[in-house]
């Protein structure tokens, strides 16, 4: 790999990194695990003048409970998420999602924050982060602010992060009672990214109705989104395999699907329904306490 020349810095603290980012503005790129930036600079599609490597910042890779929430440091690797016992018991959706990313090497290097901040339309986490109603913490020299997942993904490769901000943390609520989650994904055979990925979260009421349903979809359009039409069709309905299957057909409503070598827009639209259904069925089954 021979990228165009750049100036490299590896600040020791988040504050230093933020100051550097503020100074260099648009000319700087943040490097965490490198799995989004390196492919771009390798082909010289991106030629940043400055690369700020935050991969060595201490204390930004953690998974812990804080004030009833689970908080995850931005530099936490996919492998750490995949193998976290805390997440396995309290937020299994992230564990399941991380396990589908790339291969072992990618999961050892890639980070949650890096993947979210890059906002690749085929990345896996966005679907789950949306379905979990997670919160994303952005840090800047003037402090931190919290962005709801629903507002975070703006467009292809574009997030609500402002210039000078670094994604520092992700917060999710622990799995509620009578709730099941699942992530189902069609792999692009070469890259392993999602042609379509669907994350489902289902909470059942005492009378067998659907109390809550959330569906996040990635890969279909230019950005990951919540399939609101599916959710609306499910809310308050009697939970059954059929009700989920019917609702899943609305998965692509309001979205203009992408089209590429690996899947046409038409096929992606159909597969969004198939995978939304698969994720919902699994989540439903788990909400009932089945494995």
């Amino acid at each position, binding site marked *: 790999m*021979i990228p165009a020349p750049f100036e490299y810095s590896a600040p020791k603290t988040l504050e230093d990194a933020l100051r550097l980012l503020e100074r260099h503005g648009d000319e700087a790129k943040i490097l965490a695990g490198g799995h989004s930036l390196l492919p771009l600079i390798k*082909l010289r599609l991106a030629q940043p003048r400055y690369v700020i490597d935050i991969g060595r910042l201490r204390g930004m890779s953690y998974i812990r409970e804080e004030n009833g929430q689970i908080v995850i440091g931005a530099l936490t690797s996919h492998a750490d998420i995949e193998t976290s016992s805390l997440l396995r018991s309290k937020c299994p959706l992230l564990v399941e999602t991380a396990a589908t990313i790339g291969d072992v090497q990618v999961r050892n290097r890639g980070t949650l924050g890096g993947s979210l901040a890059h906002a690749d339309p085929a990345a896996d986490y966005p679907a789950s982060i949306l379905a979990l109603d997670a919160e994303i913490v952005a840090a800047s020299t003037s402090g931190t602010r919290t962005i709801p997942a629903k507002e975070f993904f703006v467009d292809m490769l574009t997030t609500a992060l402002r210039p000078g901000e670094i994604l520092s943390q992700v917060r999710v609520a622990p799995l509620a009672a009578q709730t099941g989650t699942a992530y189902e994904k069609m792999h692009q055979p*070469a*890259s392993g990214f999602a042609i379509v990925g669907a994350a489902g979260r289902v909470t059942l009421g005492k009378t067998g109705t659907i109390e809550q349903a959330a569906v996040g979809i990635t890969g279909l359009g230019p950005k990951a989104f919540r399939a609101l039409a599916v959710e609306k069709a499910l809310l308050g309905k009697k939970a059954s395999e059929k009700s989920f299957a019917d609702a899943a057909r609305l998965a692509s409503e309001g979205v203009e699907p992408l089209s590429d070598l690996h899947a*046409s827009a038409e096929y992606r639209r159909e597969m969004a329904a198939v995978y939304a259904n698969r994720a919902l069925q699994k989540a439903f089954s788990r909400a009932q306490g089945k494995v």
Partner: protein
Amino acid sequence: MATATRQVAKPSTHQIGKPLKRKEDPRLIQGLAHYVDDIVLPGMQYAAILRSPYAHAKIRSIDVSKAQAAPGVSLVITGADVRGSLGIVPCAAQIPDMKSAPRPALAQDRVRFVGEGVALVVATGRYAARDAVDLIEVDYEPLTPVVDPEKAMEKGSPVLYDEHKDNVAYRWELEGGDVKAAFKKADKVVKQRLVNQRLIPAAMEPRGVVAEYKPGERLLTVWSSTQIPHLLRTQIAAMLDVPEFSVRVITPEVGGGFGSKLNVYAEEGLIGYLAMRLGTPVKWIESRRENFQTTIHGRDQIDDVEVAFKKDGTILGLRVHVIADLGAYYQLLTPLIPTLTGLMASGCYKIPAIRVEIVGVLTNKMSTDAYRGAGRPEATYLVERTLDLVAAELKKDPADVRRKNFPKLSEFPYATPTGVIYDSANYPRSLDLALKLADYKKLRQEQAKARKEGRVMGIGLSTYVEICAMGPSSAMPAGGWESATVRIEPSGMVNIMTGSSPHGQGQETSFAQIGAEILGLEPDDVNVIHGDTSIVPYGIGTFGSRATAVGGTAVYKSLMKLREKLATFAGFLLEENPSKLVFENMKIYSKSQPKKSIGFGEVVAAAYTAKKLPPNMEPGLDATTFFEPTNFTFPFGAHICVVEIDKDTGDVHLTKYVAVDDCGNVLNPLLVDGQVHGGIVQSFGQAMMEEAVYDEQGQLITGELTDYAIPRAADMPWMETDRTVTPSPVNPMGVKGVGEAGTIGATPALANAVVDALSPFGVRHVDMPFKRERIWKLMQKGSRRAK
């Protein structure tokens, strides 16, 4: 070192046929092996190449001044600089009335594919060279690219070469038997177009070249990741117009070739040229993108097939029209490869009349050339798909139709109408074994049940024959023999120097087994040397599944010569008839009086100390053989697989794979299994996912591993492999070759399984690769039709 081992030598063992682990593996697994990129020489500079972004364009001008002035840059050259001083990329294939399509080492005023080298920078560092490439300014005048081979043949298509009136490189015909009569008397005729898509070999190690020139010795040493060190030496000498003794080629470890390194590339000439011109060593290492764009591609045929047959399934005649996309230029064997499809168009069947027409077409794409199987996978694919079309048409079991058309055992050696002679075979035996291993009857029952349940399951068969051990020199541009020198050193260690150039096949192990067997030693006492033109005798190289059958036979013959000489020495010392001596356990002893025995090392020492020489005997132990095969060999086999297709998505899952291969006698079953496994996986790649896609502008859109899918371990089920053994009569060890068998036999089995699965949807054929969307659409269409 080996003394201790010798004293505790194990009891008599036969080394040939043992599943010995590869001697090569420890260094490869531990990262101790050396590839071209591991070579660092004092004062070495680095080359980077500016490549054409256009598929077809005129070069109006090139301004290298900024690049030349960039830090660390010592030289920038363009096509004009090498014109007259560096010859064209060689093509060894000649087909009558073939149009010329010579590739210059750097583009001369015109580029004809995306990735063609336009200018080259040499700098003191790899980064400096690459950065300076971006500073070269080229003024292109884009021309209309010719991408689709069928459109390329149309009147009015833009033409790649001003000196040609069209893009048809050649027309080649082959006919045997009375084809017209066969079609006339047929009960039925079926036609089908079959596309064998373009593939990218994607060796794990891209190409790389290091060259160093020593003016005092007038010696240019070139390290290259190649399959053909000697042919490369000859061609580099020709490109540079220097005597052949001024060039030494060394092949370090090669990280996969699959035919893509059975070639002579522009860069091999260029880097040699630069080392001589600059007086410093120069290194060039191909990037993955360059590897995809500018290392040869494989396959790329459109085959229109017409088969004539009787109601009982007997095939009477076959017509094949091949459109072969050759790309923009000829590499070493480009025009020749499609003709191998013609030679093997009979498959393992008795087809009395065959006509093959091949049209080679020039397009604005990378050249096609030999890729694992090289023309034979295409032949097997078209024959095996055709057999299934016949079975489907007659509603017969595909296994029965195959059996019906096998030549009788008494007909071997069997001469096909395409002019080749199959050495030996027993096709029913391999098919029967495969059917048994797969439990074929039960599979069909399971399939019937699955269909009732609404599942989509398919079973695919392929019975193949291939041509390998290439080959008699009459059929090979540079000769088809192979060389081997065996030298027993005074210490008793055996060095085998082979003209083969193994790069993953494991001949350091299997040739050592031959040596150990013949001389009664352990394989560790036998060392195999290859890939250095200054050490090993001139050789042809490793390709066409030839290293064991041709190269191994040369090794065998040299060893036998030395065995005879050793026996003479031992007989002289033991006062025993040499023909009565046995070589075993590092000893040579009399068969009838085993006490008459002498250590192997003692005899070797006697041959070197030369104190008491047998009459008319020279000292020393060194023998060379150039083995010329009298025929090719024709390995064969039967593959059966099962696929299950996800109705909702079109995903094809391979659930079972059974391969029965017959490659004659086996030197090392582990190596054979490894070759079969790898070949099947590569076939799976072609069948399911691989496809080099160029867009209408001639841009390679599958230009990276993120878009060009290759199979991974997790895609494969357990592969059940077994063998039948039908020795080849054309070489003394009775071996045939197995390097390409998997790639030849497996693809049609996979295709037949997918078509079989889809047959309830009214599908008669579907082209590879079987990507989900393609399959899903067929099922959607079929379901709608059924309603």
